[in-house]
């Protein structure tokens, strides 16, 4: 594929490419087959690969995630699609107590080379129970890798690297990114999953973010540039493991950090990054680390309240200005 | 004092005499009087400061040994062994 495509297209192509390359790869989840996927990511794949490899599952996250764990332990390379992170709560025990621990608990006799893809985030008026951004929670768990592709290249390239990983990898696709368009090189392929990326270089402040908040941070950086403030935008890409090296090099250079995280601030990935900056770059700071997160309330249903609850560009701008004095 | 500490003291004192020059970019083998445009009074002040900081009393016949940065550091290191 090449030319003008969507993030969704890139996700689909990643799955197709993996399925074609490795016969052990299969996709399973609710509505991934006949319906073509809740977000249309797997549209057309059932026709292409057949029902053995594109498997519609019963409405039981715990059940089919456990199935995926078992399949992975037995030599397959399953991609389990949990419709959204909200429903992953029903498979939390499988993910946290089985997938993340089996290698450790079995003394390395068994591994779980499982990939779980989930949609995450808010913005579609799906209200309190269907608008979570819990990728930060999963990043708390040793034994898991947590990815947050925010660009077409990463949506296209992270899946293969994740499938090659002998241990469980969770991939979080922000719901508001699926329709994002852009161009993708024809030869776009696998990308690394352990490094952050500098999406825009700057020298006055480090804007640290991931996933659905990346476009807002880039937008904010553009506006700041007009006011003579040079913001460096870091796309974390991976929430576990965090790329301390890239983060600290940036903060040591700019001396100011603003973290944009759609999770709630309490005990979040933004809190973790703040702690690490404190530990590793305190003597470089000219201002306290600032965080722009969702309001600490269950995400509202009405559009205007939902928008008000989520991190937005004006709040990012205000946070940056707060660090400048 | 080890050589790094000596170097640090020497550079700092030179910095006080010639504050507008970047003491860290001095050619270590160049004549300091030329490098930093310092005169005999400056040099004496420099030696007075070194005496105060390190206790080393440099006699006049030895002045010429401290005319370069490396020379000064080596001389002091030798006296402080």
């Amino acid at each position, binding site marked *: 594929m090449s030319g003008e495509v969507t993030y969704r297209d890139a996700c689909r192509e990643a799955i197709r490419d993996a399925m074609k390359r490795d016969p052990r790869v299969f996709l399973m989840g609710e509505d991934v087959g006949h319906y073509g996927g809740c977000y249309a990511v797997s549209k057309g794949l059932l026709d292409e690969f057949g029902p053995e490899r594109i498997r519609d599952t019963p409405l039981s996250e715990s059940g089919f995630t456990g199935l995926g764990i078992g399949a992975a332990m037995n030599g397959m390379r399953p991609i389990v699609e949990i419709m959204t992170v909200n429903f992953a709560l029903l498979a939390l025990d499988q993910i946290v107590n089985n997938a993340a621990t089996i290698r450790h608990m079995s003394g390395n006799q068994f591994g779980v080379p499982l990939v779980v893809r989930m949609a995450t985030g808010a913005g579609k008026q799906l209200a309190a129970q269907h608008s979570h951004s819990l990728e930060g929670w999963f990043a708390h768990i040793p034994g898991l890798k947590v990815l947050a592709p925010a660009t077409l290249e990463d949506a296209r390239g992270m899946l293969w690297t994740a499938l090659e990983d002998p241990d469980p990898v969770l991939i979080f696709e922000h719901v508001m990114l699926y329709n994002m368009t852009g161009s993708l090189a024809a030869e776009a392929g696998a990308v690394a999953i352990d490094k952050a990326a500098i999406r825009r270089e700057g020298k006055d402040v480090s804007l640290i973010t991931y996933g659905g908040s990346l476009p807002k941070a880039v937008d904010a950086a553009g506006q700041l540039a007009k006011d003579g403030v040079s913001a460096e935008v870091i796309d974390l890409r991976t929430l576990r493991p965090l790329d301390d090296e890239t983060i600290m090099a940036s903060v040591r250079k700019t001396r100011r950090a603003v973290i944009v995280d759609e999770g709630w601030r309490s005990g979040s990935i933004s809190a973790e990054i703040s702690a690490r900056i404190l530990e590793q770059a305190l003597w470089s700071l000219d201002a306290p680390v600032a965080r722009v997160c969702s309001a600490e309330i269950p995400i509202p249903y009405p559009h205007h309240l939902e928008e008000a609850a989520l991190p937005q560009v004006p709040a990012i701008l205000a946070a940056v200005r707060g660090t400048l*004095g | 004092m080890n050589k790094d500490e000596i170097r640090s003291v020497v550079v700092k004192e030179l910095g006080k005499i010639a504050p*507008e020059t970047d003491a860290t970019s001095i050619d270590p083998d160049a004549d300091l009087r030329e490098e930093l445009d310092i005169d005999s009074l400056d040099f004496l002040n420099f030696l007075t400061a070194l005496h105060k900081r390190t206790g080393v009393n440099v006699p*006049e016949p030895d002045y010429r040994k401290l005319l370069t940065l490396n020379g000064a550091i080596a001389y002091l290191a030798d006296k402080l062994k």
Partner: protein
Amino acid sequence: MYRFRMPSLGADMEAGTLVEWLKHPGDPVHRGDIVAVVETDKGAIEVEIFVDGTMGRQLVPLDSKVPVGTPLAEIEGAEEEKEAKAPAPAAAVPAPATPSPKPAAAPASVQGLRASPAARKLAAQKDVDLAALKGTGPGGTIVLHDVERAAAGAKLPHRGLDLEKMRAAIAAAMARSKREIPHYYLATDIDLSAALAWLEKTNAARTPEQRLLPAVMTLKSVALAAKKYPAFNGFYDPAKGFAPAKAVHIGNAVAIRGGGLVSPAIHDCDRLTLDQLMEKLRDLVARAREGRLRSSEMSDATVTVSSLGERGVESLYGIIYPPQVAIVGFGTVTRRPIAVDEKLEIRSVVTATLAADHRVSDGHLGARFLKHMAALLQEPEKL
């Protein structure tokens, strides 16, 4: 009276909650009967009694958590064991509540100086006084940039000095001098061997802070010569003529780093000892370079001395500072071949020059002035 107490139901049990009585006041109890249910960390446990008797007064309300050993009920008809069977008294010290960490102290007013970590680190490295800075960071915090600027500013040579203005003033004075004063020039080579030998001997016994520079000997010689030959020490006013000065205040030309020149006066130079002269010289040069001279130092010089120091050339011909009438110049001391008692020797020699106002003196007097200076410098111990 036997007291039925909260039993220890585990090695690490400290307290339990009585949740149910299975025997009530008045009920007979027998050894081995279960009389109560106690809730512990490990779950609800049925508790037996080990005496016979009648359940008496119940002492503890249900659902209350009490330490191990607390009496729960009186059993009538049974006796307390003589030896203290009671387990360790309820001295189970409740774990002190870890005080919640104080919120970060309010900045500025409570903590004092508000400076960022980056600023503090650089200030310590560069010896910058944070208290003297004004902060441009959030809430007036001193940030790295503020310290960088202060450190850079401190390096500029003209704190208190305006080199451009100084140059303009020098230009005006020198131009006027050349316009108005008819200069004549004399030069003589002075053998400094005796003086330098004396100096070396004197300095060898001294630590650096007490040592003398050759400059103080030449200054003193000029001062004494000026005292003897007042035609070179005073001011000339075209309307009134020459007025010799009562004292000898030598203006010592000091080069300012960055391209300035100033000649502050050392007062009563002829009456100072060499040590005092050295002290004054040090002080004056330091203050001149910082721009902290006093007005008297700027205006009182009666004659000026200028020298090239160690890295100059053989001779210096000066320009008289009006309204003074003379300026003595010293070139760099060099090793030169000279004739001494019909033999060729290498000696330390300095070329001393005199530029003087021909309206006030002439060459004959000037020569005597210089010769006297040279003679003085052959007897350094008398300076």
